């Protein structure tokens, strides 16, 4: 089976991507959204033309000298500013809008205004971390349970371990991409991004399990002493089309959502697309070949 025979090439491709992602995470880090840090995000459009960024910045500096302003144009050609500043009260909100309209001299339309206090931000961060940990624990337990009866020649916890390696791979890559996009295009990581990561976790396991299930079945059916690598290879080729096709339909839905779905879910669907693509790759080219590698290591150890 070509996947098994060339597994080192596939490992290398993944290792390069994972290292690049980690490097970007270390060097650039992630740009947390206001959900986590607390702060205010304002999106306004200017139906009669947008004033200069400098003029708005001067006005805003009296409220928050650290305010950041980013010009943006929607798909319909509306000229907008997206402003991020410290958390504001209802009274300060009036001042913010006065600043954005240059003391009511320019017409401004409020499209989106969110202000999150730091207390809520800390809470969201904690909830996100706990959710991620719980999902990972839930999935490990589930895999261990599902494969409890398989012990030869690779014991059940090793399936779990392999699935976890595939999981980490699938989550690190989109996070790395968002770190790069955060640095160069201002993409922020918010609670919706964490949701995307959790969905990727679920989906990645889903894909990996399909192949593992087949390995389990073929192990039971194979009578003679067929080498393990051959059984895994067979299982991959038997499940190859279905792995690609199930991911394909999901990716179709997500790409359509990314293109037509509107700005709210744009980054969310992008994160999912990257993660699910990585997940499909890892379930075919990383997860199952790793089983073979682990089995070989085990034999050498004996």
């Amino acid at each position, binding site marked *: 089976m070509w996947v098994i025979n060339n597994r080192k090439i596939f490992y290398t491709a993944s290792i390069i991507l994972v290292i690049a992602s980690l490097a970007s995470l270390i060097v650039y880090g992630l740009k947390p959204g206001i959900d986590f840090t607390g702060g205010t995000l304002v999106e306004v459009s200017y139906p009669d033309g947008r004033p200069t960024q400098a003029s708005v910045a001067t006005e805003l500096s009296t409220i928050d000298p650290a305010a950041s302003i980013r010009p943006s144009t929607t798909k319909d050609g509306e000229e907008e500013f997206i402003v991020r500043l410290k958390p504001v009260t209802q009274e300060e909100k009036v001042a913010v809008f006065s600043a954005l309209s240059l003391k009511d001299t320019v017409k401004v339309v409020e499209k989106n205004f969110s202000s999150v206090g730091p207390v809520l931000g800390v*809470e969201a961060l904690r909830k996100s971390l706990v959710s991620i940990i719980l999902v990972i624990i839930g999935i490990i337990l*589930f895999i261990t349970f599902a494969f409890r009866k398989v012990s030869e020649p690779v014991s059940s916890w090793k399936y779990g371990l392999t699935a976890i390696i595939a999981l980490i791979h699938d989550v690190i890559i989109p996070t790395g991409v968002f770190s790069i996009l955060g640095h160069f295009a201002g993409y922020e990581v918010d609670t919706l991004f964490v949701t995307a990561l*959790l969905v990727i*976790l*679920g989906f990645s396991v889903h894909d990996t399990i399909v192949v593992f299930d087949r390995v389990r079945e073929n192990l039971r059916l194979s009578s003679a002493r067929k080498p393990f690598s051959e059984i895994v290879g067979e299982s991959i080729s038997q499940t190859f089309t279905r792995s690609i*096709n*199930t991911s394909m*339909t999901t990716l*179709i839905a997500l790409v359509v959502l990314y293109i037509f779905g509107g700005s709210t879910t744009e980054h969310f669907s992008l994160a999912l697309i990257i993660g699910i693509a990585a997940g499909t790759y890892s379930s075919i080219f990383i997860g199952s070949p790793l089983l073979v590698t682990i089995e070989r290591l085990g034999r050498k150890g004996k």
Partner: protein
Amino acid sequence: MLKHRARAVMLLVVAAAIGYFVYVSGQPSGSHPFRLGLDLSGGTHLVYQADISKLAPTDIADSMLSLRNVVERRVNLFGVSEPLVQTEQGAALSSKESAYKLIVELPGITDVDEAVRSIGATPSLDFRLVTADQMRDYQTKLSTFSTTTEQDAAYMALFKTTGLTGRMVARANLEFNQTTNQPVVGLTFTSDGRDLFSIITKDNIGNYLGIFLDGKPISVPVIRDQIADGKGQISGTFTLDEAKRLVRDLNYGALPVPITLISTQTIGPSLGQDAINGGIKSGIIAFIIIALFLIIWYRLPGFIAVVALAVYTIIMLTLFKLIPVTLTAAGIAAFILSIGMAVDANILIFERMKEELTRGRGIWDAMHEGFARAWLSIRDSNISSIITGLILYYFGSTAVITGFALVFLIGVIVSMFTAITASRLFLYAVAPSRTSKLSTFLVSNGFTKMKS
């Protein structure tokens, strides 16, 4: 065979009927319109942190309830349609200081500055006058009003402010009417208040003095004598609890629980409309592309999967209305994602069928085996999605996330039904009974001939 066909037709008819219901009731004037979240309808979402540190633990639940009621009354005054005021207590993983929250949603309008200011304000008590003549006029005209709103407006217009307000109340206390034993609220005015009250009562004997709480009349007694001692009484039709609460509100001049605003979100109507249009458009396009893919690749079973997917879509939309699920942009995203995932089970089954066919089984046997053998994989892979969905639902920090998780969970569960039960029924109903070249072509799949 006949049995399968009859059942399949029945399921289709039921699905079509439900689909018609979804369509008709979805019209703006329909009986069950979709419930849209604030991010789609536009509006303001406010989160307040409630400070319960000064309350006895046994009073917290009651105080939070009365906080909710007070705020709801204030919000209603601003004519916001369908405001939502709710408290959140001790939600999972909240820190101590944010364990108690008050959430206010004001849909539809974005200019809520005044409403927002009023939420945090102290209760306003004021006294307004109506002359006896005006009141008589109003009562003779009662029958001419066509609506209650018109009547209320006319009634409110009668009252003239006096400048006497709750700020001039030095103390309020709970008393009982000697004869009826009804609870009443006794007021003691400050020296300024006493003088003003004295003048008002002296000049208006026989007229009515309306006592207004948060802009609403709670009692409109007749002034019988001048009251010079600075003491008054409000004898509305209070229950004991209401009277107690009013006394507390007047004495402490504040909400039952102090609150601070910790999050505001305002979404303009255009952004919400964009999200709705984008969601509908992507849903339709995704459905069409996936349908084409399934039919081209999986042929007859693929077509069955598309029918099952249509049934899935109808069931989901119906559940959104009946549960009802508040749809958000993230919820719509979950629905579209779930369309892509719903056919996964079908793909697993059909691929399995193909394998059984290559092993030389007849079409009928291959179908049975396909469904039976794919079940384990389908179950296992859906369980991992359900784990994710449940955790997201319980630990989601915002309405956006719980909205996503709810739709995602419902989607996974419904898709197990449609992809397995419904598509099996349909497939059995149309399956060719004899194995021929044509029938083998119809039920096999892929672009190339099968390798043996």
